């Protein structure tokens, strides 16, 4: 399967958008996961629910909400533009934002599960050895929740690669700027007789996600070593 330059461009854009989305969301998602797993505060449940929203609402509604909030006339979008000169709508960064928002709940859940599985007695042991709460977090909780981070990153990356509804609504379908793989596939599907192109693009998606999957498995295995008890 030899790819056309246009297809390469779509792949490049999709990867750029998905990587940015996952990279930026990773620490945020971990922060939320930690808060929900380890802290008890008023509004914890609401935060949890808000994070799950993009999962429950139809993606186009999420895209529409992003437009209302982050559009140039929106409260956050207007402020971003005036303060930093940053515009998200119709830009690839906007596509990344849409992908990130859709990926967030998946990432938070996976990370939270791993953080909750960390034995707190180990954190206590670290404290007696001289670690501040932050140092204990960085050296104990964080590395022990790597499986959740990897699973979350993988889920988030796959979700970003597949994100369609919120992206097309918030960032539109602009070739070279926001037309990622799913949008290109969608465009193809709408056109009679473009089944061949659609199939090629779908296969590319599958290969990309397979690659990401294998990379994440390999990373986890490397970071884990042969740590586990066998008996």
């Amino acid at each position, binding site marked *: 399967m030899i790819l056309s330059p246009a297809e390469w461009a779509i792949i490049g854009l999709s990867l750029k958008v998905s990587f940015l989305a996952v990279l930026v969301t990773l620490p945020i998602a971990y922060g939320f996961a930690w808060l929900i797993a380890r802290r008890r505060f008023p509004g914890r449940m609401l935060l949890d629910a808000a994070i799950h929203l993009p999962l429950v609402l139809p993606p186009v509604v999420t895209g529409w909400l992003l437009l209302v909030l982050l559009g140039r006339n929106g409260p956050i979008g207007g402020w971003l533009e005036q303060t930093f000169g940053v515009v998200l709508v119709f830009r690839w960064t906007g596509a990344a934002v849409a992908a990130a928002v859709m990926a967030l709940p998946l990432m938070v859940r996976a990370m939270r599960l791993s953080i909750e599985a960390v034995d707190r007695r180990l954190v206590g042991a670290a*404290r007696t050895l*001289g670690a501040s709460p932050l140092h204990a977090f960085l050296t104990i909780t964080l590395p022990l929740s790597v499986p959740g981070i990897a699973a979350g990153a993988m889920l988030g990356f796959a979700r970003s690669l597949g994100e369609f509804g919120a992206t097309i609504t918030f960032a539109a379908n602009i070739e070279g700027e926001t037309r990622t793989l799913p949008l290109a596939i969608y465009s193809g599907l709408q056109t009679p007789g473009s089944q061949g192109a659609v199939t090629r693009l779908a296969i590319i998606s599958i290969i990309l996600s397979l690659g990401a999957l294998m990379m994440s498995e390999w990373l986890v295995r490397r970071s884990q070593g042969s740590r586990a008890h066998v008996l």
Partner: protein
Amino acid sequence: MFFDIDITMRVGERLIETAIASDAKLTAIVGPSGVGKTSVLNAVSGLLQPRSGHIRIECRTLFDSFAGVNVSPEHRCAGYVFQDARLFPHRRVSANLAYGEKLARTNDRWIDRNEIIGLLEIGDLLGRWPATLSGGEVRRVAIARALLAAPRFLLLDEPLVSLDPGRAERLIALIENIRDTLEVPILLVSHSAQEVERLAGHVIELARASGS
């Protein structure tokens, strides 16, 4: 006074009251299983906050509900050998040893890494993951880790468990040595009368309060 502890703690539904006043640099705590020995060490290390009372070691106040003092665990500088070892499963033995060592100030150190590794015979284990260690090996690594953190006092919860007589003997000698040559008070929990007799300058017998 090396140890001046008078606290009331809540563990689960139980209320445990303990008073320890000892001038012996090595003080042993004995008592039936479940009486609260580990809980006392937890309180002294700062992991368990007593409801009230005070904890002073060598005249340093670590906790005083009256004065509102509660030194955080990392500033208490305890060398705590846990009953359940608590090695970090994601770090090899050498990294477990280095954990507290790196966090300690260099000139607080009073024992050499190689010396303790040789003494506890854990040189062969440095590259291993904790999950692959035998029971006695886990314990020896936990002891080394605690000693290398340059502690100002030691909390040893049954440190000799799972050690063969030869190694136990060498560890006892080490503890005697620390007791006699260094300014490091030691609280030792043990069930072995023999051990306690040989090591402890003072023995505190905890007993279940009749009320609870």
